[in-house]
């Protein structure tokens, strides 16, 4: 007979990002740290820490059917639920995630597209320091996010830009059916990044997509140093090779990618691609709305 789940001392670190900002790519880099002979299968690389908005893990933790709760009620319970999940040993994590195994890293990296917002009781939905010891915020030039988001959602670029400007936007916010994940607040591109940059609950490491693209080993080295995971340079270099964008795209073309619902998930992966994808008016509109946050993150109005 097994003992009940033991409390875990493994660190959880969020990989937080606005959608289409390189979160999956960062995840691929981390998963490939544990690959020796060949790149990990892009269709089989769940993070050890799961996803913050996972419905099954919430239900497992609270004994409730999240499908019987309103978004607001769920948000009131999420802080304690995420803290509870962070305390699980690996057996409990496996059960909570229907048997999906982790990536083998010493730290539980958890993916999140949740803005760092407060629920209607004034508590951080993400659970603060009780649910994770730190966060990596991955950011990308909003002019590159817009066409990528449009492609991902199967919408036109203006619709994507409007979504990025909407302070009330969310993923999985339907009320007439059960979305596959819990609601994730996405209060605009600026609002999302501000929410993480301005929170003071947990230490934050800022990782720019453009820097990850330019020099993946350096970006990965910086992330690992921040998170407190020790890896040698050779391992990091190999992971970067295995998670090279072209390599990922080849894998997707050969066997598809389960997280890419519409066509190619790994589309262009370039910095500054907006120059031939956005009209001048679209670029100006994004710069006008998000200028302050772009400036804060080092994206000049005419930069690459």
């Amino acid at each position, binding site marked *: 007979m097994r003992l009940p789940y033991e409390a875990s001392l493994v660190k959880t670190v969020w990989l937080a990002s606005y959608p289409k900002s390189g979160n999956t790519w960062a995840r691929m880099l981390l998963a490939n740290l544990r690959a020796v002979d060949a790149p990990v299968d892009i269709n089989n690389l769940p993070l050890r820490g799961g996803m913050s908005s996972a419905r099954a893990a919430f239900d497992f933790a609270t004994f409730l059917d999240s499908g019987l709760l309103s978004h607001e009620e769920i948000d009131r*319970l999420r802080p304690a639920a995420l803290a509870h999940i962070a305390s699980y040993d690996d057996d409990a994590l496996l059960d909570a995630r229907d048997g999906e195994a982790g990536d083998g890293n010493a730290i539980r990296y958890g993916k999140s597209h949740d803005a760092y917002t407060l629920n209607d009781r004034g508590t951080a939905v993400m659970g603060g320091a009780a649910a994770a010891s730190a966060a990596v915020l991955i950011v990308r030039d909003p002019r590159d996010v817009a066409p990528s988001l449009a492609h991902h959602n199967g919408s036109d670029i203006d619709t994507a830009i409007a979504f990025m400007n909407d302070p009330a936007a969310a993923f999985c916010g339907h009320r007439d059916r059960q979305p596959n994940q819990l609601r994730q607040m996405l209060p605009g591109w600026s609002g999302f990044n501000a929410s993480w940059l301005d929170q003071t609950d947990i230490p934050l490491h800022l990782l720019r997509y453009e820097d990850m693209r330019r020099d993946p080993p350096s970006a990965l080295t910086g992330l690992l140093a921040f998170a407190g995971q020790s890896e040698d340079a050779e391992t990091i270099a190999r992971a970067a090779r295995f998670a090279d964008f072209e390599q990922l795209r080849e894998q997707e073309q050969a066997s598809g990618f*389960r997280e890419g619902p519409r066509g190619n998930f790994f589309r262009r992966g370039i910095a500054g691609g907006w120059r031939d994808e956005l009209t001048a008016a679209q670029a100006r509109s994004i710069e006008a709305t998000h200028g302050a946050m772009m400036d804060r993150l080092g994206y000049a109005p005419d930069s690459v």
Partner: protein
Amino acid sequence: MFSYRICGIDAHSDIHLPGVDEPALPDATAQPVTIRRGVVPGAIAGAIAHGPNWHIAASECLIEVPDVARFHLSDGARITYAVACEAALADVPIFLLGTVFGMLLHQRERLVLHASAVAVDGPDGPRAVLFAGVSGAGKSTLAAALGARGFALVGDDMCALSLRPGASPLVHPDGRQLKLWHEAVIRLDLGERRQERVRPVLEKFYVAPSGAMTAPLPLGAIYVLREARTGMEPGIARANIVDAALLLRRNAYRPQMVRRLGQNASYFHAAAAIAGHAGIYTFTRKLGFKRMGAALDQLQEHWAQIGLAPAL
């Protein structure tokens, strides 16, 4: 007092439980349960585990649905509920019938799965076919769609099993109506059967099944529902005994409670007993209402293969 037959247990309740049939059978042999409004303690002595909104002791549990109600369960026989100050009483029954009753069954050390079920003809009479899976896997929708093809409902969300030596386990009907989201009611053309909302705040409704079983029936098969995503082979596959044991445990109604109460071993033993008389399968398919007809065809073909129902 209202009386109901839920998962083979007679429940005597001071609150009306919508979507449950009143018992039409003689008294069940199982110990009845009482459901009463009253004082719910803030803590329990000797708790062996705590969660975000629950405490478990050997024979007592506390569970809270924030801003709706708090529940106390003792000895698998008594449920006491306290309604939160601003909450509507109409919000309480769905949690009593779901989480709280399921926890009570776990407290009684019953084998209880997070599954819907329908009745399928077998060589020796009707058998229960179960569809297990996480919330959103499509359990209720599948049972509803099978209802339109004439398969009577056995359970919507929770199935209690009784093991029998030398025979397939018995599945006890949960005695409830289906619970479906507005979208599913429309897509499955069940508007005429739609009843009240399961909660005033939700676009989810009770839906009267076209036919329902009231007496327990032997288990025919268990399908664990999986979404077919890229890189996954769609179809129906029989689980080997090791996988079957894991699947059964992870599809317990509240697997963490099973683990915390030290009942994992009984689920492993049950898997072996079930495998001898009825298969445990994974059913991996693409989700979506457009694909529902194909999924039902696939199931019916499989039933013909395993000797359950006549072929299409």
